[in-house]
Each structure stands twice: as structure tokens, then as C-alpha cells.
């Protein structure tokens, strides 16, 4: 009975008795979740358009952040460095399309997945070669990202909101909204959805696959840059950061590989679930459950909805 109450009663009693702590936990979870969503979004964009599971998404994030900081270290003003980094991500998208995707078109998915492993190691090598392997500090102030915190006195206590987190959430929302509108409303967006459905048919109505691939890899690159800045600001910019990309996997399982709303909602669920689990149930197991809880949640989901929350139901006529 003791263990039963420790799992099913005490945590909820705690939530009710200290709503300020609950609010704090949920907020932190949401912020982490927004960043997971952004990473997952990068995967979804590329997967939708080319059916490639882009293993390099995590390293693209590090590479983008590293380029930004590295350029700044070399004396380039912050905003110009940001512009240059975006240009470099565009260059990267074009090169990947030309040198990797185009020669491998129509190859089995596994070949393309392996190719993205190749891109990963190439980017690690290139990043270390040009900017060195030492952890760097993100240039938050130069980019006018706020620091410090706001204390809110609500719910009979204090809830601390880091200004950086608020900015991160704001930027992430703006990006998601921007991408959503771009892909729903524009000609390129319609073309992208067409490519996602049927390559041949897309070609026959005059859509250039090559152009679409560059567009999505560039969009994923920009998303990677934004994520890299946010994660970099919370810790350091180093290659170790790419492991957070692995956190996108449970998000993708939860949200479905092909759904942009799924990536967002999935990210938030994982973020909040992780923080709440750690705070309320973690002590039962000696803490540290944050590391695996996300995968656990995703697995539990997988049992009931294999296609994810918003994934496309696979309908096959037989």
C-alpha cells in the first residue's frame, strides 16, 4: 500500500498543495518541450519531402551554432555573423542536394539514411577543423537575447521565469507559425506536399524535386540554427550538444514522422512529462529518470497509436 500511495496519491497531493511548484515545473517542461519540438520539426520537414530520416539534424544544429559563434570569435559582428551563418546553411543545403541526394535519387531509404550518417561525420570534421573542438559560449547578449529572470508572485508562491526561456518560446512559436503558413499557403508549400505524396506525379506537373529538396534542407538548416542558439545559450556550444537531438526521437514517435503539429504537440508532451516525472516521481527511484522517461512515454504511446498522435493513418486498398 505504501508504494501504491507513493506513486498514485502523494505526487498529486503535492501538486495540489503547492501549485506554484507545479506551475514552475510545467513552465520548465514547456520550455524544454518547445526546443524538442523545434528539433523534431527539422526531422519532419526533411522526412516529408524526401522520405529521408536525417540523422544529421542534431549535428546540423551544432554546426550552425558553432559557425555563428566561431565567426563572431573571428571578429565578425554578431548580426552579420548571423546572416552569414544563414547563408552558409543555404550553401550546405545546396551542396547536400547536389552531392548527396541527387546521385542517390531512387535508392532505398536505408542508403539515404546511411548517407546522412556520412553528412554527420563530415560536419563534425569540418566544424572541428575550422572552429576547433573546444566548447564555446553562445553570444546571447550580442544577439540581444535577454538574460535574468522574472519572478511572478502567483498561486501563493513565486514562479521564476528565465527571460531567455520566454524569448526561446517566443522565437520557436514564431518559427513554427511561419513554417506552417509557408507550407500551407504558398505555391512551394503545395509543391512540397505534392512531392511528399508522389515523386513521379510531382515531376509530371512541373515541380522540380531538386528545388524542393534545397528548400526543405535549407528550412531544416534555419530551424537547426535557431535550436542551436537556444540550446547553446542554456549550456555551451559543443559537439556534445548533438545528443539532445536524440531526444527528438521520442517526440517523433509521439507526434508521427510526417506531421508538423505532431512534432509540436509531441515536443510539449515530452518536455512537460519529463520534468513532471523527474520532479514528482523521480525521488522514488533515486532521481535521474529524466534521461529515459521520454523514451518510456513514447514506447507506451507506440503500443496504442503506432502512427503517432497526428501521423497519417496508413490506408491501403486491397
Amino acid at each position, binding site marked *: 500500500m505504501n508504494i501504491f500511495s507513493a506513486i498514485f496519491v502523494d505526487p498529486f497531493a503535492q501538486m495540489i498543495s503547492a501549485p506554484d511548484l507545479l506551475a514552475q515545473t510545467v513552465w520548465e517542461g514547456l520550455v524544454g518541450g518547445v526546443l524538442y519540438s523545434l528539433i523534431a520539426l527539422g526531422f519532419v520537414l526533411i522526412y516529408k519531402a524526401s522520405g529521408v530520416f536525417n540523422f544529421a539534424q542534431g549535428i546540423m544544429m551544432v554546426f550552425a551554432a558553432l559557425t555563428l559563434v566561431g565567426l563572431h570569435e573571428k571578429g565578425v559582428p554578431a548580426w552579420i555573423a548571423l546572416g552569414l551563418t544563414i547563408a552558409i546553411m543555404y550553401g550546405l543545403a545546396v551542396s547536400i542536394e547536389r552531392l548527396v541526394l541527387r546521385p542517390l535519387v531512387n535508392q532505398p531509404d536505408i542508403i539515404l539514411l546511411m548517407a546522412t550518417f556520412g553528412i554527420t561525420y563530415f560536419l563534425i570534421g569540418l566544424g572541428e577543423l575550422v572552429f576547433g573542438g573546444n566548447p564555446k559560449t553562445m553570444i546571447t547578449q550580442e544577439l540581444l537575447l535577454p538574460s535574468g529572470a522574472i519572478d511572478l508572485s502567483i498561486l501563493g508562491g513565486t514562479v521564476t521565469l528565465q527571460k531567455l526561456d520566454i524569448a526561446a518560446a517566443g522565437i520557436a512559436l514564431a518559427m513554427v507559425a511561419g513554417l506552417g503558413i509557408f507550407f500551407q499557403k504558398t505555391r512551394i508549400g503545395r509543391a512540397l*506536399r*505534392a512531392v511528399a*505524396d508522389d515523386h513521379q*506525379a510531382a*515531376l509530371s*506537373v512541373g515541380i522540380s524535386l531538386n528545388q524542393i529538396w534545397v528548400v526543405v534542407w535549407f528550412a531544416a538548416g534555419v530551424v537547426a540554427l535557431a535550436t542551436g542558439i537556444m540550446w547553446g545559450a542554456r549550456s555551451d556550444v559543443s559537439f556534445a550538444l548533438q545528443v539532445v537531438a536524440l531526444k527528438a526521437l521520442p517526440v517523433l514517435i509521439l507526434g508521427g514522422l510526417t506531421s508538423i503539429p505532431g512534432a509540436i504537440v509531441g515536443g510539449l508532451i515530452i518536455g512537460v512529462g519529463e520534468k513532471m516525472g523527474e520532479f514528482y516521481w523521480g525521488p522514488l527511484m533515486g532521481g535521474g529518470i529524466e534521461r529515459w522517461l521520454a523514451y518510456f512515454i513514447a514506447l507506451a504511446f507506440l503500443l496504442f497509436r503506432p502512427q503517432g498522435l497526428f501521423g497519417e493513418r496508413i*490506408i491501403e486498398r486491397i
Partner: protein
Amino acid sequence: MSEAPEILLSLEHVSLSFGGVRAISDVSFDIRRGEIRAIIGPNGAGKTSMLNVINGFYHPQIGVIKFGGQARSRMKPHEAAAQGIARTFQNVALFKGMTTLDNIMTGRNLRMNKNLFWQALRHGPALKEEIRHREFCEEIIDFLEIEAIRKTPVGSLPYGLQKRVELGRALAMEPKLLLLDEPMAGMNREEKEDMSRFIVEANQRLGATIALIEHDIGVVMDLSDRVVVLEYGRKIADDVPDIVKADDKVIAAYLGVSH
């Protein structure tokens, strides 16, 4: 007074092989502007390969293709589309997750060129453009009598309707040349009659030149102005339906010869 008919597309001595397999050997024929041209032949004769060559999916190793009088070299499918070649596929190739209307709208993709920024905001010139194209697509939907499924995701439609939506998407491109790969495969009599009517009207009312592959010889003979017959990648006959029908080689190809 009669002028020589204008040639829209011509293929001269085209050969295509995959590795050691010859799919098309030294085939020449042309398509006149405004006609309905049928390509027929037994299974494996190279008919679909022929269409794939015309719209740039395949590049023949030998031969010249002239479209609108201009010879072209290795043209990509989307470039062929930009020049006015539209097509449908043997096994319907639609965007299954999208609605009928969206599928047909993709056919207008090449004609939409307003700023992406305005498109995203649904504002200004881009909004006018979107409305204009939408109207055009609605006309096609009326024409093909598929008003009722305008908002239905095409993946859930029955096969006959999917074929119709696919034709709609191709027509939305206002093609100069429309390639139809077995537009009536797997259809019942009634559906075939509907489809034949749409093809004739697309040709006469909308002015599309049409090249079609079809197995139903009755339909082919009724619809087409001229017929090319392929067998094992070679051309064995090329004339108006009545003459082709009586051609010994054609009869042999379809029925076999007694020895």
C-alpha cells in the same frame, strides 16, 4: 488551299535501352497539333517507355525529339512540363493525402509566380492570382463532373474517380500536349464512355493535342485520328484507324499468325 498540318512533336529514329534490353528500337513518328494520336501494341511493346521518353523521364540513347519545332537534348520532366507537356499514369499517381481541388491546383503550380511572401499572407497580387487559378480549377471540376468530391482526399476515392482527378490535374496545366497512359484501364463500359467524352471534349473544346495509350481497340478506333502500333519496341504500323485495323502485321501482333 489545304496546308500541311503543323507538327507539334516529332520523334526521329529514337532508340532506348536499359542495360542490354532494348525497349524502343529506331522508332519515328509525329504528333500533329490538335489531333488525338493513339499508341497501341501488345504488352511490353514499349508504349509507356515511349511516353516516358516524350515527357523526359527517360532519355533515349539515340534519336532526336522535336517539340514545337525545336530539337531538345536531355530534358528533365519538370522542364517538359514547363514547355506544356502534361501526362497521366498507368497506375494513377495522385497526391493521395490532398483533396481533389488541391490535386488539381498543383497543375497550376507552374503558372503561379507571384511573390512567396504575399502568397503566405494571402494578400495583394498573390490573393488575386490564387483566386484566378482557383476559378480555373473549378471550371475543370465542373467539366469533369466531380463537384461532389472537391474537398475529399483523393486516397479514399474509387479508382474511376481517381483517374478523372488525374486527368483534371493534367488539364489544369493547360497543356499543349497531353499524354494519357491507359486512361480507361480497369473501367466498366459506362466509365469508359464518360472518359471518352472527356477526352474528346478536352481535345475539341480545350484544344489539347492528345497522345494516348489504350488497350481497348474499339475505344482507340473511335477516338483517335491516327494510330501508331508498336511491337517489341519497333513500329509496325502508323496510319488512320481504318487502315491500321486491316493491316496484316497488326492483326498478327494481336492475334498471332498461323504457320
